[in-house]
């Protein structure tokens, strides 16, 4: 393993504009999402707090909606919720994915066949189909339940990626040597396999979070989101529900769209950057 130093990290970033831009966007969003609520009075986002349907002004930077909520306040409270759903679902997905992928790739045999076929089958089924069935059957949906519903299908791509990498790692000479030296399976996985999987785990995590957020706002657009909580997708849903698009209240629906697009662009650039990183490393190894 290469030692990670501050200088090493800055060198990684300099040669990789996608990663730099992506991470900058993500950091900006994270600051807005997790520090913003500290400076926001939640009462400003309650129904009837202000005169409804105001266009943006100095008092209300993003105006108010038809229910008299301050849009900026609502946006500030909604962003962390959507990120939470993405991060929880992403973390659960990657956790299951790493375990299944390692088991499948490392053990091989029947276990591998079962996990591989299972993954292939679930990848074929469009996620939205299963998610809709589950979400319609859950009585009340809140942010935590939403995250768990999405997490049910978030393991598919990580499992496939980790399995493929484990398979190729298993055949490497140093793993074979360690095995011949009598290193146990668990120790081998922890010391030799896992560290080399790390870049792939990071890349799949970014991709999975992005997928999870996309799935959430998709379900929310269909009206299957947390009805009583703020998320970016629910903001768009309610804006549409009250005809904000046709009535020209752009300040209501445009801000959540801008934040969502920034999240996706940031994650996409980060994942493209990570890909580049992983692949150059591969090329150097080969």
């Amino acid at each position, binding site marked *: 393993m290469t030692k990670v130093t501050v200088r090493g990290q800055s060198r990684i970033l300099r040669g990789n504009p996608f990663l730099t831009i992506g991470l900058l966007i993500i950091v900006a969003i994270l600051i807005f999402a997790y520090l913003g609520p500290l400076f926001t009075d939640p009462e400003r986002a309650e129904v009837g707090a202000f005169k409804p349907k105001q266009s943006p002004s100095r008092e209300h930077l993003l105006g108010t909606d038809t229910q008299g909520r301050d849009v900026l306040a609502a946006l500030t409270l909604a962003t962390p919720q959507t990120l939470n759903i993405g991060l929880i679902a992403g973390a659960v997905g990657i956790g299951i994915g790493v375990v299944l992928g390692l088991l499948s790739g490392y053990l091989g045999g029947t276990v591998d066949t079962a996990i591989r*076929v299972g993954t292939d*089958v679930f990848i074929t089924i469009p996620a*939205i*189909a299963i998610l809709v*069935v589950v979400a319609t059957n859950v009585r009340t949906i809140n942010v935590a339940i939403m995250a768990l519903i999405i997490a049910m299908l978030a393991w598919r791509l990580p499992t496939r990626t980790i399995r493929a990498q484990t398979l190729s790692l298993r055949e490497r000479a140093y793993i074979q040597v360690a095995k011949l030296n009598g290193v146990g399976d668990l120790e081998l996985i922890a010391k030799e396999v896992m560290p080399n999987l790390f870049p792939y785990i990071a890349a799949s995590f970014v991709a999975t979070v992005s997928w999870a957020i996309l799935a959430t706002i*998709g379900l929310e657009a269909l009206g299957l989101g947390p009805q009583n909580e703020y998320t970016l997708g629910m903001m768009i849903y309610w804006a549409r529900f009250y005809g904000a*698009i046709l009535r020209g209240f752009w300040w209501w629906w445009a801000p959540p769209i801008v934040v969502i697009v920034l999240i996706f662009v940031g994650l996409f650039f980060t994942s493209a950057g990570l890909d580049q990183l992983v692949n150059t490393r591969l090329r150097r190894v080969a």
Partner: protein
Amino acid sequence: MYLTYLIRRFGMFILVIFLAVTINFIIPRLMPGDPVEQQLATLVATGGGHMEDVTAMAEAYRVKFGLDQPVWKQYLNYWWDLLHLNLGYSLANYPDTVGHMIGSALPWTLGLVGISTLIAFAIGSLMGGLLAWPSIPRALRGAIPLLMIASAIPYFLLGIILVFFLAILLKIFPAAGGHQFGSVLRFDLATIKDVLHHAALPAISIIVAGIGVWALEMRGMMISTLGEDYITLAEAKGLNGKRIFLWYGMRNGLLPLLTALALRLGYVVTGVILVEVIFSYPGVGFKLFQAVQTKDYFVIQGIVLILIFAIALALLVMDLIYPVIDPRITYQRR
């Protein structure tokens, strides 16, 4: 060898359908309470149905589903109905059948998906191929980050932005619907023009968001294709650039792109469903949205099953014809 491949691939298809149907059967039964009563109760609570219909319907359903029978028997009955293409009745639009509702919505969706995906695929792959070509002007390479941004935006969000600018502000296209409200669909020029006019905005959102994806994928394929020895040979033979680009580069890069299309099919279809919701387009996606709004459970379930079946079938067909059109593929197990 092709036969083993066929059998294995077909087994996969059966497995997908089996799993989808089983999930659809189990999930409502995992929830507490009688599934029919619960669905009907929520329906009444939300004001989506009339009380007198509901009692009669609940009774009819209970007999039909045999909810007093053991679970394994219910499960077999469920399969029996599905195999006879019986998806049940709509709760919100009783006595309309689910099959009929989906049938009337399906042509809209297929038309929208088919045409816009083809256009996006054609423009996108051509753009991607050109972007990988060494002798294009440097300035054009600036398009790459733009394409990355376009491919990262979900279809339906793009749809909302397009509605605002092109339908509300500029009033070029209608904001919603599949045809003029109240007009009768006939097969004449005026109707076709009207339908195309309404389909333009949803199609544009799918195309714009799709172009980025295909262009980036194609660029990747093309870069690796251009590194092949036969390209060097073609150049050494003195073939002109256009011929090398189209017949040696594009042709070989396009085939793997079909696999990418297959892999993204689920994503595309999800995107189209949500675009239909945004534009109130009378396809399957909008039907699903309406069914969710009115808690019309059997319609939701029917659409979900049709969706899974259609995608699984498309992937099966794609996988079966792929080895035929691309002889580089072998059927061996990896």
